[in-house]
């Protein structure tokens, strides 16, 4: 905690100054609340409106969670399949890159047309934004395994299975976690976008309702909640990583030396 304060005071100071500047400019320039509410007004709305809001949050968290787990499992599975079967990699790698150039916003209404307003199209949206960073990071991790070690293992008579589980998989774990961290924040965004399109509950729904009724303060509450959720999710993955990877990855070690 102490080291966090030592390292963290600079960004915290910037944030505090930013909020202060915001607050002062809304007062001095007399900006109307529907255009830009001041931070205190946003906080007040967050507290008074909490009872309406909390239901939306739990619904979104649930969606993020299910989507993230399905998305990352598919990401890991695709990476392993592409790594172990070179023909698959050659055939599908370019397709995966192309799939990321289709904007989710464009794809989402199509998914609603095909799958309705239920859970399925939303999970598909989150999966689409989640699996890509994981697959790419994991594939790179597999491929960058130590060549000398691989030769050593092959000459000692290791099977492909042993090489995968003893060498490539553990070597790719740090890469997997960098992918998971990116996906964690993406999945929050993916969940909100999918809720815009049609849902009965969720932060996305709350946001569209708020903006269509010019409740700018509520839009800001939603934005802050999204940021906090992303950070929280990121933090959970970070904790998991610290628990699982006790050894220092190579790059980090070289940086310290």
């Amino acid at each position, binding site marked *: 905690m102490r080291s966090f304060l030592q390292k963290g005071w600079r960004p915290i100071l910037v944030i505090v100054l930013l909020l202060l500047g915001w607050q002062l400019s809304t007062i001095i320039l007399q900006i109307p609340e529907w255009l830009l509410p001041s931070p205190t007004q946003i906080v007040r709305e967050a507290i008074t409106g909490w009872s309406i809001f909390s239901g939306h949050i739990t619904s979104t968290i649930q969606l993020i969670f299910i989507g993230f787990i399905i998305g990352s499992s598919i990401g890991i599975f695709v990476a392993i399949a592409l790594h172990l079967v070179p023909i698959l990699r050659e055939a599908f790698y370019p397709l995966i890159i192309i799939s990321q150039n289709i904007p989710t916003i464009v794809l989402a209404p199509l998914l609603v047309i095909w799958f309705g307003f239920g859970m399925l199209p939303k999970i598909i949206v989150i999966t689409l934004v989640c699996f890509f960073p994981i697959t790419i990071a994991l594939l790179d991790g597999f491929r960058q395994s130590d060549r000398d070690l691989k*030769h050593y293992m092959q*000459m*000692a*008579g*290791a099977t492909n299975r042993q090489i995968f589980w003893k060498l490539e998989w*553990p*070597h790719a*774990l740090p890469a997997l976690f960098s992918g998971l961290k990116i996906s964690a924040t993406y999945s929050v965004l993916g969940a909100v976008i999918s809720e815009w399109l049609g849902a009965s509950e969720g932060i996305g729904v709350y946001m569209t309702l708020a903006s269509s009724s010019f409740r700018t303060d509520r839009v800001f509450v939603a934005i802050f909640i999204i940021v906090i959720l992303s950070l929280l999710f990121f933090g959970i993955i970070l904790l998991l990583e610290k628990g699982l990877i006790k*050894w220092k990855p190579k790059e980090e070690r070289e940086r310290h030396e």
Partner: protein
Amino acid sequence: MSKLEVNAVSKSFGDNEVLRDVSFSISDGEFVSLLGPSGSGKSTLFRIIGGIAQPSSGTVKLDSKEITGKPGSISYTPQSPSLMPWRTILNNVLLGQEITGSRDEHKALEMIERAGLKGYENSYPHELSGGMKQRVSFIRSMLSPQGLILLDEPFSALDEFTRLDMQKWLLSIWELYQRSILFVTHNIEEALFLSDRIIILSAKPASVKKEFIIPFKRPRDERILLSEEFLQWKKVIYEEMRQQDVSVDY
């Protein structure tokens, strides 16, 4: 009886001829050095002996059984220590046994202690110095069930002092366990100090140029490094290698 027999092995990659008619053998418990310029196809030769590459022609035999293109009979120690950073020293050392046999922790601990690494069993490789890592990598090979150890310039990244210490240590362990070793280096002094026999490889395409039997008695003392006889040998080998106009560490 010879442990390893390399018979007329040649290898080309398209027009690029890397090995030409390489033949040599290693007896049981013998320490043989391959001395050759860098980039003379040694790693290709290693991959062929290790069974993970096929020669264009020729055969490799171990204990009179053909192992051409069949991995699993050789323990290879790469140039870099190549330890798994996510495994403790003990688990790194046991890797060779895990691949083909069963783990023998007791023997592993004994070897770790003999290597002067007692207390580091549960450390991770990044906590060790370069020389220590190289020792761990070597213990891993010694513990592997394979009868022949290939050492690929294991000390080239170490400083001069650590290097001599490591050479002495390597000899002491080898004398204790008597395994067959094929040692690759481009340092004449190192080859002379360590080996029973030195095989000189020519530059590309590599072929066996000459063989020398090194008569210094064992166990070897570092004082021989400064003896007249040692310098004579060094000169002979240096002359031999210079004829092919290659640069070597002198």
